[in-house]
């Protein structure tokens, strides 16, 4: 079995970057995780070990023009990666409406050495196909960095599903065939649209960070064997689906176990649990 990478986690409550009660409460409200507590790194490692995860991709969120706040900054992500580069992969975030958005992203890639970009169109309030984003996409290409887009339902406040339908991203995939982009949460509830896009565009990926109903085993069975054809991932999309948990909203331990019970080939599981993430990260 190869390396297991969780490509979608939110480190807002990691103890080293969430040191005060005020910050904890602010992040609880901002992320809609109302009873979350701070997590020591020892606890994070215990969670990873129990779930069999080797590395976590850490996602920040820059909302500086829309909500006058940054929930987790690029610098905080760098701080966490510096604490443990063996276990953490740091992503950048940038609010595209910031006048200095390009400079901030160049700093994140060039100086902070972050591995990719997370964008959240439905909370940062932009259309992925907008010309506003073209310089950002060009910069990602120049640095060979992938983009994770939030797609589909979000349980965060101030976030509708506008700009979250997977079809919003087709123009980007078509216009930038060398740009690797991932639709988080498999674009739920539009999982068939996500599957269709993955089928057509090899530069598109999707993660498994969806657990909106039922237990992990029940919901993954519903999504990956009934909403989608039972063999679609295993036969056709096996190089483009990545394990992502959306932790701490969803728990990794049962999600991985549920993926292992879907009947996919062992080689498909290896791809989904880690190898695809390595390809995506470049």
């Amino acid at each position, binding site marked *: 079995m190869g390396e297991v990478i969780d490509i979608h986690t939110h480190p807002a409550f990691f103890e080293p970057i969430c040191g005060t009660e005020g910050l904890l409460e602010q992040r609880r409200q901002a992320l809609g995780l*109302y*009873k979350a507590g701070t997590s*020591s790194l020892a606890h994070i490692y*215990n969670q990873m070990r*129990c779930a069999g995860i080797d590395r976590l991709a850490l996602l920040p969120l820059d909302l500086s023009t829309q909500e006058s706040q940054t929930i987790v900054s690029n610098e905080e992500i760098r701080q966490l990666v510096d604490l443990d580069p063996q276990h953490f992969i740091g992503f950048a975030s940038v609010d595209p409406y910031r006048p200095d958005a390009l400079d901030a992203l160049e700093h994140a890639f060039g100086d902070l050495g972050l591995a990719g970009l997370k964008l959240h169109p439905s909370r940062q309030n932009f259309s992925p196909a907008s010309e506003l984003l073209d310089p950002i996409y060009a910069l990602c290409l120049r640095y060979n960095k992938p983009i994770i887009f939030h797609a589909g339902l979000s*349980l965060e406040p101030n976030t509708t599903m506008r700009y979250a339908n997977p079809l919003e991203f087709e123009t980007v995939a078509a216009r930038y065939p060398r740009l690797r982009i991932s639709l988080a949460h498999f674009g739920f509830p539009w999982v068939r649209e996500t599957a269709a896009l993955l089928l057509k565009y090899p530069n598109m990926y999707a993660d498994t960070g969806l657990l909106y109903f039922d237990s992990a085993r*029940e919901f993954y069975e519903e999504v990956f064997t009934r909403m989608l054809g039972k063999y679609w991932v295993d036969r056709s999309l096996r190089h483009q689906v990545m394990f992502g948990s959306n932790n701490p909203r969803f*728990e990794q*331990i049962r999600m991985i176990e549920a993926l292992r019970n879907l009947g996919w080939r062992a080689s498909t599981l290896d791809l989904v649990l880690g190898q695809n993430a390595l390809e995506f990260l470049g």
Partner: protein
Amino acid sequence: MFYHKRNTVLTSQYNQFILITEEVGAAVEESGIRNGIVAVTSNHTTAGIMVNEALECLESDIDDALQRLIPEDHPYAHARILRDYGSTAGNPTGHLKSMLTGNHCLFPVVDGKVVKGDAQEIYFMEFDGPSQRSYTITVQGE
């Protein structure tokens, strides 16, 4: 006299037996109370306090019995998003196992010592780990 303390535990497994008998005895000693009662209470709904004999075979049997009674793969109503939390409740088995062990135990304190049977040990029972947990020890007497 009244003495109360809170201990924290960083659990490392999904289901875990953690012996806390020594911690309870130490708290009774620290309290200075000679005669009375000591109560040990879990602060959680997916963890418990259990009294039993500390044998590897029994821990295995108890774990096995709890899993048989409360299997992971069952259509639990609690398996859903909780709006008040903003997250998925993936832990119905933890709640149900906690119900079986209970959330506390109680022992007499006589001459500054916990009065318990030779085979009796006190466990903090993790049913939804790994997690950051706590339990309280309360001694009342004179």
